[in-house]
């Protein structure tokens, strides 16, 4: 790394890095995280079916990110490895969103100060609890700051505009459909011009952490399910749903761990 001629104050260096990271994040599409009555909802505008912005980390924990894909993808993998290692060497219950957020904060903070280029990412770690009061949403920024958020987080290019709107429209205990339609509407709104796009199910990546599911709470909502919730006709999907897009997993028994008896509707993907 070549040093610029003359003296540059540390404040300036840090400010330059912060600006660089913020610009990188502001270029990208946004992601909205909203708590609803049954858990936590993640909505992203994402045209790719292979590259995900929202992913499962552990039984109750999910990861959502904006910014540079390969950077947040590395962090996602690190999070999965950290969680599986902790759950394996201790117990599955000992993996917490807070612990994960801490580890990410340390890593991001060190990268920001030590590396020649900060990670251009903003991340949410969310953990769904037994009740809505136990839900946790952590927002981590490029410099390793952690914020404990309540109710909703919006990140990315339109993040600030969406946050302002959600401050008026959010309330605790919204049903899933209302949370989803609100998020989709705000994602489709251009903050600069106010132009409203109507995002279709195939342009969205949506997932939930559902309180009521056994063990693994994370579930992606297929395009067909989304079309139903958004009131869009199935024909608009333009492609048949892939047969391997299984949404739900039946309850499971863990070796040496707690046994969950099979429920009456295990394996069913009805009833969002």
């Amino acid at each position, binding site marked *: 790394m070549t040093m610029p001629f003359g003296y540059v104050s540390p404040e300036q260096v840090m400010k330059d890095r912060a600006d660089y990271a913020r610009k990188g994040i502001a270029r990208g599409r946004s992601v909205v995280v909203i708590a609803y009555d049954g858990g936590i909802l993640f909505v992203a505008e994402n045209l790719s079916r*292979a590259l995900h912005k929202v992913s499962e980390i552990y039984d109750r924990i999910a990861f959502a990110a904006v910014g540079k894909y390969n950077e947040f993808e590395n962090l996602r*993998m690190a999070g999965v*490895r950290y969680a*599986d290692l902790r759950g394996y060497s201790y117990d599955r219950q000992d993996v917490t969103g807070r612990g994960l957020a801490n580890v990410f904060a340390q890593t991001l903070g*060190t990268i920001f100060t030590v590396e020649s280029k900060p990670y251009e990412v903003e991340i949410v770690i969310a953990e769904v609890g037994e009740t809505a009061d136990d839900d946790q949403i952590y927002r981590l920024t490029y410099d390793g700051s952690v914020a404990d958020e309540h109710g909703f987080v919006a990140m990315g290019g339109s993040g600030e505009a969406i946050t302002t709107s959600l401050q008026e429209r959010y309330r605790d205990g919204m049903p899933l459909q209302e949370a989803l339609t609100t998020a989709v509407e705000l994602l489709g709104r251009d903050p600069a011009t106010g132009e409203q796009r109507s995002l279709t199910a195939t342009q969205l990546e949506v997932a939930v952490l559902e309180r009521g599911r056994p063990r693994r709470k994370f579930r992606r909502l297929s395009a067909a399910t989304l079309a139903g919730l958004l009131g869009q006709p199935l024909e608009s999907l333009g492609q048949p749903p892939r047969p391997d897009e299984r949404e739900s997993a039946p309850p*499971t028994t*863990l*070796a040496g761990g707690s046994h969950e008896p099979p429920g009456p509707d*295990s394996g069913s993907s009805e009833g969002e």
Partner: protein
Amino acid sequence: MTQHTGPGRLPAAYLTPGSASFAEFLGEHAPELLPGRRTPPVTALTTEAPHGTTIVALTFPGGVVMAGDRRATMGNYIAQRDIEKVFHADEYSCVGIAGAAGIAIEMVRLFQVELEHYEKIEGATLSLEGKANRLALMIRGNLGMAMQGMAVVPLFAGYDLDATDLALAGRLFSYDVTGGRYEEQKFHSVGSGSLFARGALKKLWRDDFSAEDAALCAVQSLYDAADEDSATGGPDLTRRIFPVVSTVTSDGYRRLSDDEVGAVVDSVVAARMESPGGPQAPLR
């Protein structure tokens, strides 16, 4: 770019793309947690670690059934009367274990995390053959301990989502201590009582079982194994401890409830009151 090492951050191994294997990650980062990485004892330990078992598995049109007894023995002592030896590996597969109980359960636990880890990292589940191969690798890693008497011999079964003929979607795989992997047809059994269970399965199995028939067949064969092998436990009617019976179908893994297995066991025992050797097979 400077090296990704030093205090205050996750080590580089966490952030490196490439491997979706949890066991390999452990091997690099925390090898002491791997089941196979122990120093084998100098003398064999056959009488001091719990082992002895029967696990049976059979295919039926639409899936597989796997069942295992509940007894763990140490020499002539019953170490545990309700140990579980059949587990889900993931949504569409299950594994039953015979051999040294402690190591076997640890291996199953690692296998479960391995499969789930792959799914989370890659965003797609492994094929059934891929899962069977991962298990073979784990068994291979345990060869040192196996030679000293602490062998783990699993039986792996699953529902193959890629199967073209749904009637043949249920598949079975057996293993030997070197990690060799063998696909089995129709039915199979492992453990100290497996010879007797296989004899019963040979006479009882048909290719048109329903899931209920297959479960009944499994319970019958376990009963016969317990009848001949002291290290295999029969149903404990006083304490209502029954074999673990699980099915894997297109709906996924499901362990039958105690009530369901209890009903099957009660009917088997009642019939055995009349005919202790079990249902008689025609001579011709």
